[in-house]
């Protein structure tokens, strides 16, 4: 089943409430998938800096990584720690050095996301617990995507939770299942795209990353996905400035969109949207099958 929520703010006045609104929406969707939950927040950013969000099984290992990382890369790196995750900030030009150094410091660190703005938090557990651990209600940002998972295609693990990020500031969440993910994963790996898990959704994320690396816009990559991705899906995707929605041609996985002058909101069900400001007067509709919806700041 799985539950998806998403919020793309058009008006800056709501940015300080992004986390609060998104967490509330996601908790409403808990009964669509109790296995694991995750949230991507596109928060405040500095164009000269890059954020690497990492996860450790043992949160105690995160305490000293800023000092050790600073030693290796030669400049001050800062970290903010939330539960099992840490957001490491380094100068943008040192991002690859920093990623290599983090691997060296601790082999058990897993990279959740990298980018100028994106931070991804995900863990096994219920949305309410995950949201609390990562202090999501306090987060400000321009847009965000949340997912609560009922696992089908791969194990219930942190790395199997959504959102998946396979490129800078990109993320994707999925309700459904893909049937050609094994062959597509092999193809993408041959093309040099990094795919970490056996999960079908990560392959969809990697596919979009690959198409965008080859010069496609997100909208064009999603259009191409309708032909190349076989299976059931409602996808919600985020980029540094954009927010997109795509359903497969059969469109049996539910999706509701709402738009006002202040925001665009996505929910697997209308229930997820009822607390949003001005929802009674919002334009509410279900996205058409095999049709790309995309908004950009």
């Amino acid at each position, binding site marked *: 089943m799985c539950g998806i929520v998403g919020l793309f703010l058009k008006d800056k006045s709501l940015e300080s409430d992004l986390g609060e609104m998104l967490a509330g929406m996601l908790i409403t969707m808990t009964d669509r998938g109790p296995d694991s939950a995750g949230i991507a927040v596109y928060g405040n950013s500095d164009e000269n800096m890059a954020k690497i969000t990492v996860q450790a099984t043992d949160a105690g290992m995160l305490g000293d990584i800023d000092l050790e990382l600073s030693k290796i890369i030669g400049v001050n790196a800062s970290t903010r720690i939330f539960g099992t995750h840490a957001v490491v900030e380094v100068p943008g030009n040192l991002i690859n050095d920093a990623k290599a150094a983090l691997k060296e410091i601790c082999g058990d660190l897993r990279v959740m996301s990298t980018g100028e703005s994106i931070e991804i938090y995900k863990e096994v557990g219920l949305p309410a617990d995950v949201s609390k651990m990562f202090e999501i209600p306090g987060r400000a940002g321009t847009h965000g995507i949340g997912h609560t998972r009922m696992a089908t295609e791969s194990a219930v693990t942190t790395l199997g939770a959504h959102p998946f990020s396979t490129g800078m500031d990109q993320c994707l969440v999925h309700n459904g299942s893909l049937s050609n993910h094994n062959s597509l994963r092999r193809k993408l790996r041959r093309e040099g795209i990094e795919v970490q898990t056996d999960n079908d959704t990560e392959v969809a994320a990697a596919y979009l990353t690959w198409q965008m690396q080859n010069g496609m816009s997100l909208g064009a990559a999603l259009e191409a996905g309708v032909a190349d991705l076989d299976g059931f899906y409602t996808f919600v995707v985020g980029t540094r400035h954009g927010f997109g929605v795509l359903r497969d041609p059969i469109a049996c996985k*539910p999706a509701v969109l709402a738009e006002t002058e202040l925001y665009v909101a996505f929910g697997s069900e209308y229930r997820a949207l*009822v607390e949003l400001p001005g929802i009674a007067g919002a334009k509410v509709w279900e996205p058409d*099958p095999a049709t790309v919806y995309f908004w950009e700041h």
Partner: protein
Amino acid sequence: MRKIDLEAMGLRAVNELLQSQREYTNETAWEILNPRGSHAIAAGIDAPIEVTVNGSTGYYCAGMNKRATIKVNGRVGPGVAENMMSGTVYIEGDASQYAGATGHGGLLAIKGNAGSRCGISMKGIDIVVGGNVGHMSAFMGQAGTLVVCGDAGDALGDSLYEARLFVRGSVKSLGADCIEKEMEREHLLLLEDLLERANMHVSPDEFRRYGSERKLYNFDLDNAY
């Protein structure tokens, strides 16, 4: 009119109360407040009562309805009036996928659009949609009538049995074994009655009729056991 705050009372208690109403109940008019997209609101009622839901609902609103008149002042999620037996369900807004699925009887009137698979496997229900219906509507429809005042999506009436389909706008494509048929006087009378009961103000003359060509496997006598 008895008003119930669904948020305060809880879905299970509200449905138990509605389902406990019997034929000669004195409480014949009910209003449900704060539905907030909840599932299965007013499902399984078996009494000639009137229920008005003020707001939008989630999955399976008015499912299995028998004899009640249920009106939703909002939009409804997937499977509204699924397997309805009798009675009437009015939706002021849009309906999601498989509206009226497998319905045996009664009238489902949707003022807005209905999503995909509207009337899938219908078995006698009458469905009138003010706007458009999505793809695969009336798939394997066995009996009853689907009236679409707007347009129909892909594969309308695929693998149809005896259900009657009327569309006022365009049909994106017809499903397997579904063909256009001649509109006769009995069909105009049927349409007039349904449109009036559904409170849709369009003329029966503007519709075209579709039905089964009866060429698929099931219709060939040599395939009978």
